[in-house]
């Protein structure tokens, strides 16, 4: 993937950092080195305050209220949808559906589009580097329909295996599920290219963009995928909220998922007419505060400029990989910095990642240890777990240095 960075002003991580209340905390005189944004990002004051303002001044249910605070809540709610639409350059705000998280977005595709379109003679393809959220829904769909599952494996250095891609294309699969950026290896996949190649053989493509949308410019029209999912809490937004961005024709043809309030036009005891997009897929009272908060998060990111966010992280990840490579007994996973997103996974000698994360925490360095909801990938590399440092806009070289220093301490504790 070649990237064109148009905005060349470097991002000022120091200034960004000041916008995040949690990063102002110190424990035992040490600042919080938060390197787990891949799991969930921290939130800037603006987002936290937007939630607060909603609950304190205009908390009301949306869509059906006539009184002013309800109108205001509805207006802000729908405005956030437009902000999200513009942020990923979707064609229409009707293509933006709010869900509970990206897991729910992907399951929605499986339960609605999947059940309506996939049958026992079909093939579903996903890759070995998928998060469980982009694996288990397709296993469930395969269980419901009898469709066959096929996989694209990964190479030793963390790329999709091109031979497997070609083999998959020959199968003319009904569905391809692929992550835009691996949450473990950091691999940035060539989504636009993959979509074009799979569209050619008639495949519907679902992209898990949970680790892409927060970290780089994403243009869903350029990708041209059929469904793209992402999750608010990883992009400065509140918990309990995901997005499914779908191609309008597909969404319109799909049966609804959950039944209930807001997704209906007319309900009779024995039958129901469904509502228009996007509400057809938003049953029940939505996460109103969450959606309003995500709108503010998207404003914050837009103001920084996603080009600059990507440039900042690319530079930081390159530095981190360079520094980490010098720690003895450390094994790095994933591709070289140029194709690498914001997450860096590694193992250190025989120190179990769980223990390692624990020791790093004593130094106020927060990293994730485990299978990262990507067990097939762990099997692929024959490891039980990795330690993962993942970066975001508020991280800088000091954070990398603190990580490396803590790793040396861990080596000492483990008498290496």
């Amino acid at each position, binding site marked *: 993937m070649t990237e064109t960075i148009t905005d060349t002003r470097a991002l000022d991580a120091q200034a960004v950092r000041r916008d995040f209340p949690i990063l102002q905390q110190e424990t035992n005189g040490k600042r919080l080195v938060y390197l787990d944004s891949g799991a969930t990002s921290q939130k800037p004051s603006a987002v936290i305050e937007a939630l607060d303002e909603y609950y304190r001044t*205009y908390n009301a249910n949306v*869509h059906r209220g*006539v009184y002013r605070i309800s109108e*205001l809540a509805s207006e802000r709610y729908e405005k956030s949808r437009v902000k999200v639409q513009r942020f990923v350059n979707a064609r*229409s705000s*009707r293509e933006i559906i709010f869900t509970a998280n990206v897991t729910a977005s992907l399951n929605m595709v499986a339960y609605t589009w999947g059940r309506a379109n996939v049958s026992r003679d079909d093939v579903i393809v996903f890759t070995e580097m998928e998060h469980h959220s982009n694996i288990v829904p397709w296993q469930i769909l395969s269980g419901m329909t009898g469709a066959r599952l096929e996989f694209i494996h990964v190479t030793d250095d963390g790329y999709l295996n091109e031979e497997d891609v070609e083999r998959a294309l020959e199968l003319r699969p009904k569905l391809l599920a692929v992550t835009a950026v691996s949450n473990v290896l950091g691999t940035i996949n060539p989504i636009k290219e993959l979509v074009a190649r799979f569209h050619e053989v008639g495949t519907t493509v679902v992209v898990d963009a949970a680790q892409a949308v927060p970290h780089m410019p994403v243009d869903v029209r350029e990708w041209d995928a059929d469904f793209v999912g992402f999750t608010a809490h990883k992009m400065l937004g509140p918990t309990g909220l995901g997005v499914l961005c779908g191609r309008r024709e597909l969404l319109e043809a799909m049966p609804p998922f959950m039944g209930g309030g807001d997704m209906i036009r007319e309900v009779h005891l024995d039958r129901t007419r469904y509502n*228009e997009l996007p509400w057809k897929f938003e049953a029940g009272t939505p996460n109103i505060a969450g959606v309003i908060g995500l709108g503010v998060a998207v404003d914050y990111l837009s103001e920084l400029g996603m080009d600059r966010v990507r440039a900042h992280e690319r530079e930081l990840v390159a530095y981190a990989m360079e520094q980490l490579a010098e720690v003895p007994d450390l094994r790095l996973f994933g591709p070289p910095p140029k194709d690498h997103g914001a997450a860096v996974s590694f193992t250190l000698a025989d120190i179990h990642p769980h223990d390692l994360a624990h020791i790093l925490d004593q130094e106020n360095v927060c990293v994730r240890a485990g299978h990262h909801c990507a067990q097939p990938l762990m099997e692929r590399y024959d490891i039980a777990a990795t330690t993962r440092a993942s970066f975001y806009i508020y991280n800088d070289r000091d954070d990398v240095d603190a990580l490396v220093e803590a790793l040396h301490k861990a080596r000492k504790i483990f008498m290496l």
Partner: protein
Amino acid sequence: MGIIAREYRHMDDFYREYILDYYRNPRNRGVIEAPDYTYEDSNPLCGDEIRMDLRVRDGVVEEVKFSGRGCAISQASASMLTEMVEGRPLEEVKQISKEDMLETLGITLTPVRVKCALLGLKVLKSSIYGLPVPDEDEP
């Protein structure tokens, strides 16, 4: 001044007498037997329902009737709309904009009530085009 007052400075009492008059004594209320164009739709958010029936001769709206139920705003504006289109060429009717409708209504509305005021126009256009037209407020 709280957030509400700040955001809704334009709110006015808008149950003017003529609106109530259109609500209680609607012009062109009813249905047309075997209309040339007909459509019916509802506002999913509040349940207002409007049906529009048109009879067209030589490209001109000869007769138009509305029926349905809903709030004073939706019913009055549907009724006003029938008066606007009667006797006019279909091509002109297609040009009627959201702004035209709101201007005729003559009151300032909040976003939710705008949907009520525009339901009649939406149904009218759907009837002419023979398919649902999207809300005009879509970005």
